[in-house]
């Protein structure tokens, strides 16, 4: 058995504002193997975004162990994180190609190489020919594709996605799910995908981590045994139903 890429054990986080304390996460423990796409599912306020921020090194955690990287898969926290948010957050004044180059610029990567890579990524996410467009000239789904390319441009080991398709319409969302699976396979990245879409979590994840709110805690963590590449008709698969029902039950909806 190879070593996990991410190892979380008993991680907790409490926010303090003045005298008030807010338990954002308690006792989160799970492992992520290299190249996995783990879906983190739960209601609003269950601490899934907080967990992403801890992994991104943006917030310190209070208790427990957070370890990213292994002997075989080195991890450099200063340059191995890619992030995608619910809003594309493209810079309005930059053309798409230049938007995608932002992380490379911040990290000071060689310009010519980064441009080459950015062009390749644009082709991979299906944005070839849009290099010189401005964000407002693209649809919401296309902007989110650009945001994904931006998260990959510096070739990070870990990509953190915080409800990236939450703002898209249902049809575009389904399409982007398929696209993401393809991009994930092609890039071979380890992805943490936060969502509150239960069927989205089951459809995308090699593993699903379920979190519940009030109090925030980790409720379940199981592998999704559906073949790859995933196709939309798997959503009618009996096992797909078993998985989604299992999550519904945990979230107290059954």
């Amino acid at each position, binding site marked *: 058995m190879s070593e996990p890429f991410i190892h979380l054990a008993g991680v907790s986080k409490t926010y303090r504002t003045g005298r008030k304390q807010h338990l954002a996460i308690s006792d989160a423990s799970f492992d992520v193997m290299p190249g996995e796409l783990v879906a983190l599912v739960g209601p609003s306020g269950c601490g899934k975004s907080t967990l992403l921020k801890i992994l991104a090194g*943006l917030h310190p955690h209070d208790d427990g162990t957070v370890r990213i990287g292994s002997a075989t898969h080195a991890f450099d926290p200063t340059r191995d*994180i890619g992030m995608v948010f619910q809003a594309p*957050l493209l*810079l309005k004044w930059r053309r798409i190609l230049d938007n995608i180059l932002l992380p490379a610029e911040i990290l000071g990567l060689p310009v010519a190489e980064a441009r080459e890579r950015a062009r390749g990524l644009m082709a991979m996410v299906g944005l070839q020919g849009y290099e010189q467009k401005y964000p*407002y000239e693209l649809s919401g789904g296309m902007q989110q594709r650009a945001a994904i390319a931006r998260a990959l441009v510096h070739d990070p080991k870990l990509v953190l996605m915080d409800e990236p398709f939450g703002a898209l319409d249902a049809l575009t969302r389904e399409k982007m799910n398929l696209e993401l699976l393809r991009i994930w396979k092609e890039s071979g990245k380890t992805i943490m995908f936060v969502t509150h879409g239960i069927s989205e979590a089951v459809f995308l994840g090699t593993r699903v981590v379920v979190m519940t709110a009030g109090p925030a805690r980790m409720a379940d963590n199981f592998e999704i045994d559906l073949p790859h590449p995933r196709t939309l008709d798997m959503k009618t698969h009996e096992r797909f139903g078993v998985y989604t029902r299992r999550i519904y039950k945990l979230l107290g909806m059954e």
Partner: protein
Amino acid sequence: MDGSESKLKQYTLGVLAHLLLLLVWYLFVRLGDVPKFVMPSPVDTFRALGVADYGWWANTLVTGTEIFGGYALALSVGVLLALLFTWSKTLESLMLPLLVTLNMIPKVALGPLIIVWFKYGVFPNAMMAFSIAVFPILLTTARGLREVEPELLDLVRSLRGSRWQLFTKIQLPGALPYVFAGMKVAAILAVAGAIVGEFLGSDRGLGYLMLQVQVTLDTPAMFMAVILITLLGMLLYGLVLGLERLLVVKDARVS
């Protein structure tokens, strides 16, 4: 092309509206038999330009200097102060409430004081334009520099980007549309400031000229002065708009 055709139509209609106003003005004066000292016709108004004694060119130049000088100073000081605020939170917390209060002072009320401090002339009137134009530029620029999406901040921090990178790559270009929003408001105010300055005390400029010809009831000359002041304002505003088109992506413009 559909787009350029409708643009052309838009411009044509705009020009037409101006010509129409001239025509209505002309007909109103002619058909209504309005006395010249109450309201001169457009023809009489333009004839006023023929009176060499009024020194139209020199006076326009003086007023223009006051407006553009005061405006340029307001732009530099306003943007510079806003930049200082982003670098020092303490300075911002200290100064911003104070500036909001100072902004509430009717700048026109400062006129007599400015005359006491700086005497008559181009400089005090430029100061008047400055004092009235600096606040919108400062306040909108400060706001623009503050409006960074928290998640964009996360993105930069997850790559361990520096404060300077955040500033040059995100804050500064992001604030530019706001700077222009402030500049547009300030352009209109600067013109008003300079003219009020001239009304309160001056020996040159279009505002001064208006007071002079008011005494002799040369209404056509007063009309002409107003038109020239308006043209100066349009020149400034047009320059700002042109610069905005050049520098700010269409979608990012703040109206």
